[in-house]
């Protein structure tokens, strides 16, 4: 298999995730787009690990999966707090820091 097949899949997934983060208004949808980005990184790590015949890529992919779980937990808790305080998770309305 070509290495680039997997790397290009990862690149496409990353770009789609970036588009989602920037264009979505719903806080939960932004978190989902971040998951897409993290998965793109994991594809790259595992593909390079296979290229170099080492399991280190997989080990780091496992670390990233763990970090992603922690990130979703805290992220959803923050979105929940946002909903409780403002009765909306529309990120366009979170402009308390705007001068």
């Amino acid at each position, binding site marked *: *298999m*070509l*290495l*680039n*097949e*997997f790397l290009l*899949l990862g*690149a*496409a*997934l*990353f*770009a*789609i*995730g*970036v*588009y*989602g983060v*920037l*264009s*979505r*208004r*719903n*806080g*939960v*949808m932004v*978190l*989902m*787009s971040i*998951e*897409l980005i993290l*998965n793109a990184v*994991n*594809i790259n790590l*595992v*593909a390079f690990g*296979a290229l170099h*015949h080492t*399991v*280190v*890529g*997989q*080990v780091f*992919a*496992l*670390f990233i*999966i*763990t*970090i*992603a*779980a*922690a990130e979703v*937990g*805290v992220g*959803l*808790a*923050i979105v*929940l707090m946002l*909903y409780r305080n403002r009765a909306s998770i529309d*990120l*366009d309305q979170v402009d308390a820091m705007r001068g």
Partner: protein
Amino acid sequence: MTIGATMVAQHVAFGIIAAVVIAGALRVVTTNNVVHAALWLVAVLTGVGASFLLLGAEFVGVTQLLIYVGAIVVLFLFGIMLTRAPIGREVNLTGNSWPVGLVVAIPIAGVLTYTLIDAFGADHIGDNTRQFTAQVSDTLFQNYLIPFEVVSVLLLAALIGAIVLARKE
């Protein structure tokens, strides 16, 4: 199976996986229904797990299914439920800033594609890249034992933090 037939099978499998992942990811960022987005996310995550299996990374592939599809998507569905998003269509899920997203995402895709083809255009992954779970666990618990423990403490801290944040006063 001969080597040639295996290669063709790998390419066909990868084509199917890539189509599912890309189509699912596009639906995740464009659909107007929050619950549908979570379900399309399942397709994307399963496809990524299948590509891990195709790369011979059996443990990461199975972990992907267990953690992402099994746990994280359920967490997302709980988040959707607790923030009481409408179950049906929602008009304003994509904000007015979507052209900004396109302006950023398309150059990223273009630059990454050009760079990857330029740098790794000729690199082949061997046909047999299978790496056994025992090798992964050996590396994890020998060379990366301290990062592993640190990550477990981080996960604990994050989960306690999530509980503290989400708890009613």
